[in-house]
């Protein structure tokens, strides 16, 4: 395959948007912990930005919604933890290897990409549950720690982890930007809009979807490894958490605007902060509020806030209309 085809000829056109992505995020990650001295919240924010970008590649660009998407996150976390605690690997290769496990798992699931949407979503949910039950099974305690969790405190380094996560969160946003400007991203969008037309044009939609799926699961795996590393110790429920690392991410992406470059990032930053405030102040009715928020989102603004923000920005910059 000729990978030159994957990139547009004119990378310079990406600079303005890249700056608009990187600068605010960099400021947020550098100054954030000084303004609100709770580094772990900002680490989670970085992890969620990576997950949102990863989900956006699959859901936003190909239209396939893997509901049990968090399984890759969890495999990344477990892969990293097992390599560090059983094989004493250094952190960096362990995280990369953990992400490779996640990507391998996604390869195992590529046959599911042939299915139509509902089957795909449900089977990924089933895969999530199956892997949770395997990893938390008491009979595998010697390998995974079973329900008692897994610990690798010997490599714990919160500050380093935070910096790496912040950099990689920004990098994942750039990955989405590059994809959106490349022929690869254009192919994915075309597949989402009309798969049959794309097939008729001689493009293998299955192959492109598989690439998107691989990239997405790899990024999720990295996010899982970084999250696990920051915790130093985790229970299976902490990483196999359908609510947080699948559903919340889906909500973030939807709120921001799926299939856009800025949407997932903006959506994650805004809603994650709202979520944290809700968790602290209304922990009792959190489920109800978030459930209703989801219902309202999907019924009234299914395309997210990105188009609205774009319109507002256009009005500010070009009050007389663009043309």
């Amino acid at each position, binding site marked *: 395959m000729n990978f030159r085809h994957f990139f547009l000829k004119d990378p310079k056109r990406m600079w303005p948007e890249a700056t608009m992505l990187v600068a605010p995020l960099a400021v947020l990650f550098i100054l954030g912990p000084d303004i609100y001295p709770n580094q772990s919240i900002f680490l989670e924010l970085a992890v969620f930005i990576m997950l949102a970008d990863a989900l956006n590649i699959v859901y936003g660009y190909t*239209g396939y*919604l893997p*509901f049990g998407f968090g399984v890759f996150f969890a495999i990344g976390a477990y892969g990293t933890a097992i390599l560090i605690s059983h094989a004493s690997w250094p952190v960096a290769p362990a995280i990369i290897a953990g992400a490779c496990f996640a990507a391998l798992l996604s390869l195992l699931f590529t*046959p*599911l990409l*042939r*299915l*139509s*949407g*509902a*089957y795909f*979503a*449900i*089977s990924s*949910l*089933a*895969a999530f*549950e*199956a892997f949770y*039950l*395997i990893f938390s*099974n*008491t*009979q595998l305690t010697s390998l995974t720690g079973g329900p008692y969790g897994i610990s690798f405190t010997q490599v714990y380094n919160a500050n380093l982890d935070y910096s790496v996560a912040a950099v990689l969160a920004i990098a994942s946003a750039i990955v989405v930007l590059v994809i959106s400007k490349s022929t690869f991203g254009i192919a994915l969008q075309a597949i989402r809009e009309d*798969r049959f037309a794309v*097939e008729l044009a001689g493009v293998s939609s*299955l192959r492109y979807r598989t690439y998107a799926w691989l990239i997405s699961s790899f990024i999720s795996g990295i996010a899982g490894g970084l999250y696990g590393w920051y915790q130093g110790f985790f229970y299976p429920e902490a990483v196999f958490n*359908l609510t947080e690392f699948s*559903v919340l991410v*889906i*909500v973030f992406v*939807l709120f921001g605007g799926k299939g856009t470059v800025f949407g997932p990032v903006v959506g994650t930053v805004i809603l994650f902060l709202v979520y944290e405030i809700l968790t602290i102040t209304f922990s*009792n*009715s*959190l*489920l*109800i*509020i*978030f*459930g*209703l*928020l*989801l*219902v309202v*989102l*999907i*019924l009234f603004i*299914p395309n997210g806030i990105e188009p609205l923000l774009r319109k507002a920005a256009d009005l500010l910059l070009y009050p007389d209309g663009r043309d």
Partner: protein
Amino acid sequence: MSLFVDAFVTSILYAAFFSIAALGLNLVFGVMRIVNLAHGEFLVMGSYLAIALANSYGFNPVVSLAVVVPVFLAIGLLLYFPLVPRLQKSGDPEMSSFILFFGVSYAMEGLAVQLFGVSYQSLQYNLFKPIHVGILGYIIPTAWIVTAAVSVVALVLVYFYLYRTGLGLQTRALMINRDEAMANGVNINAVSAIAFGFSIALAASAGVFSSFISFPTSPSIGDTFTLISFAIIIIGALGNPLATVVGAVVFAYAYGYTEIYAPNWSSIVPFIILIAVILARPQGLLGRKAREF
């Protein structure tokens, strides 16, 4: 050997119960092409209503059905109109419904926690007298027999509705081809709303008996029921209500036997079967073609 036969008998009861637990989900998918991820939560709510009726009025579950069915039929009809027609106008109703009903299931789970707390609750076996009956030398709780009997009656009623009534004919037409059904004068909203109401009422009636036969009732158990129901309807055939029974039988026997011979792994069984069936035969054991390429 007797363990083997025991599992055989209890699996029949499981199959009957899980058929009606999953049937409504399949009806909704077949008619509306949407996925009701809050299905299990409706089941749990039905269960809570039955427990409340038993605790305050000493209602026997079969009597509670007379309250549960109309209440949840009404809830289903009321929920249909603000949610579903709007959903079906969106670009991708199938995917959107996933997220929408996940939101509904969240809100319902939160509501259940607020109303009933997080502890496990169950109906008492002694609501039925005698508590146990002997059949062919087996001692079986009367509650199980009643559960199986009610499930079979519910299945027969659904069959009659679908195959012996005018509305049922329209429902089936809608399942086969939405556009042609509409062109032939089927009132889509009316037929779908009724199917949606029935689906919720079926889930709630399964819920009335769920604490006898499967899991004690708690707000978080809804997801488990939703996933098991999904496994069952996909094993049978998505969008074909009566194939649900086949899925339930396969599921019940696989579950019943692993529970006896490998109890540590029995909860994984539905998911393993589900993934295996999806990969090998995505249209389900009885379904038509579903693979796109």
